[in-house]
């Protein structure tokens, strides 16, 4: 009987259909979005530079070419400026201490990528459990966790990061990774609230779905319902939030570096390069323009990619286009 009905119901083609998973579909939709592709390529390029930068950079970020600066009458070298008797070029010029700007920008890319990864890691590690616990347990747990979230949300981010930076400046934690770890963690500690709210909202609606009921009916434990059944269904929005959270984090780091918090000399992030170049902005605008461009391009790339991902992963758009 079963074979018969099976055959009847299998009115579908007998050859194997290509199994197109949810992610394959989303990826295909992403590839149709030109801006997202441009953003994606630039993001990959940024990660590539960050990964292999030290291997291909012309000089190290701290190496000083003082002779050349002196030969240039104590002025920073302009882009492509050739100094007599020197057989190499600084493509983007140098700063007033004779440090190659391109090399410093490439090192800055490493910092930005580290911000992107570490901050989002902190955000995920705090935001997802808090949001999931609030949604799953509900009631008092939900109220307490969400009030904490509200407080963090209401507190001025920059003030918190500055206070944290000042408080831990001289400790081991403050010095780790050239002072960057402190900044990353501080940014992460102020950014997880959005993720927690997102995850809570997603899970609250998913919690009421019938497949969760079905999972309970076969005796799946609470922990596994959350990790196997609920969170995977919220992956799309989480990925989008992470991608769109990265530019915010990069910008926050640049802002902090600009006001002198975070990365310690001689290392420089894009933000501190802008700050350093700021004093020469009239005579040597390249010292500001190039790092500022780096920041702008990185932010726009991540935003384009994030927007593209949001459209691609939106279940309501499934099958369209």
């Amino acid at each position: 009987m079963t074979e018969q009905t099976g055959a009847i119901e299998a009115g579908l083609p007998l050859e194997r259909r290509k199994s197109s998973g949810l992610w394959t579909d989303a990826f295909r939709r992403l590839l149709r979005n030109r801006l997202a592709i441009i953003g994606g390529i630039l993001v990959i390029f940024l990660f590539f530079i960050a990964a292999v930068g030290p291997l291909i950079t012309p000089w190290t970020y701290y190496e000083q070419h003082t002779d050349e600066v002196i030969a240039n009458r104590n002025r920073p070298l302009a882009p492509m400026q050739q100094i007599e008797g020197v057989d190499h070029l600084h493509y983007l010029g140098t700063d007033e201490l004779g440090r190659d700007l391109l090399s410093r920008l490439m090192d800055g890319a490493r910092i930005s990528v580290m911000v992107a990864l570490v901050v989002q890691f902190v955000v995920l590690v705090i935001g997802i459990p808090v949001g999931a616990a609030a949604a799953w347990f509900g009631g008092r747990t939900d109220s307490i966790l969400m009030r904490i979230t509200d407080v963090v949300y209401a507190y001025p981010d920059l003030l918190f990061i500055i206070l944290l930076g000042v408080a831990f400046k001289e400790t081991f934690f403050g010095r780790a990774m050239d002072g960057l770890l402190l900044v990353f963690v501080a940014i992460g500690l102020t950014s997880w609230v959005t993720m927690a709210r997102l995850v809570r909202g997603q899970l609250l609606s998913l919690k009421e779905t019938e497949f969760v009921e079905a999972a309970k009916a076969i005796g799946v434990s609470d922990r596994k319902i959350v990790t196997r059944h609920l969170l995977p269904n919220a992956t799309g929005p989480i990925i989008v939030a992470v991608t769109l959270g990265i530019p915010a984090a990069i910008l926050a780091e640049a802002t902090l570096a600009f006001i002198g918090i975070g990365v310690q000399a001689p290392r420089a992030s894009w933000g501190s390069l802008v700050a350093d170049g700021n004093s020469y902005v009239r005579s040597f605008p390249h010292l500001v323009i190039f790092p500022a461009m780096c920041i702008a391009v990185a932010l726009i790339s991540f935003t384009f990619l994030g927007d593209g991902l949001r459209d691609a992963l939106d279940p309501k758009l499934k099958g369209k286009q």
Partner: protein
Amino acid sequence: MTVSDPKAPPDGAAVTELDDSVEISTEEGRRLAERLADNRPHARKLLEVRNLSTQFFTGDGVVHAVDEVSFDVDYGETLGLVGESGCGKSVTALSLVRLVPDPPGRITDGQIIFDGIDIMKLSRNEMRRLRGRKIGFIFQDPMTSLNPTLPVGFQISESARTHLGLSRSAAGDRAVELLSKVGIPRARDRMGDYPHQFSGGMRQRVMIAIALACDPMLLLADEPTTALDVTIQAQILDLIRSLSDEFGTAVILITHDLGIAAGMCRRVNVMYAGRIVETGIVDDVFEKARHPYAWGLLDSLPRLTDVRASRLRTIEGMPPDLVDPGVECRFSPRCRFAQDVCRTSEPELTERPGEGHMARCFGTEPGGWIP
């Protein structure tokens, strides 16, 4: 098609530790643990429900969704639970596995004895052991009851891995076996497919495979065919019947379709407004119904002999508000036979001619005014 004994893991399958350790904290839990291994009967009846009451505590007051419901299910028997929307059928089923959403719902009273085990006394964790292992559940809407982000193979094997402690590959083999058992062609190829790649009927077959994954003793089918079209309905019902016969699984079939109940069940309970109003062998209830509501239900079925374009017959009025049901017979406001006594007191379920045939109506009691 042959299916190996589901109690024994497939040949050469590694039996791993159960992925959830059960903390046994109650006496009933200990007895349950002893009985998990096989499906031998341990009591007179598979399921005895006594005075089950489930209430929802809402802003508008306490809704008496299920009110002092009692019934039995024999080992291997198919019992129908029929009634209109909102009469408490589904809440009864959810109560049996203690899945009534809490808050706002709660089982406020009653006993549920499953295979001799009082499941109201089980702890949460012990209850989880019972669900899926001994009691399978088929939901109404297969479109939403499967997780869209997990392959169906995973969802079928999840139950076997949770309860039988099968390894990933052994559980996968079992899932393939079940998939072909429920009539899905090229089962092994389809294990990695996602629910959206299946039609409604196929998904309901997958749900059945999930429900039967651990060879349960009782299958709760909550309107399993409501979301499906008629031809698929018949196939799914055939499938449930043949598999329950083959495995000796008892079924509680919840439906508002009397035709389905008549075709599938030996006995039916007719529910109205949270109460059982009539119970008995299918033939007795359908041919010698002794409750005006049952007549109304039977009368409202369209017949082939009906004049074309004639209006469908309905039961006048609306089901009562279950917030404060009052003391009267709950059907009396809609009942054309109602007399004063029906409005001042509520009848008990009393015996009528026929095996186990009972009805809750003053008018059809011996000496009543309804012939």
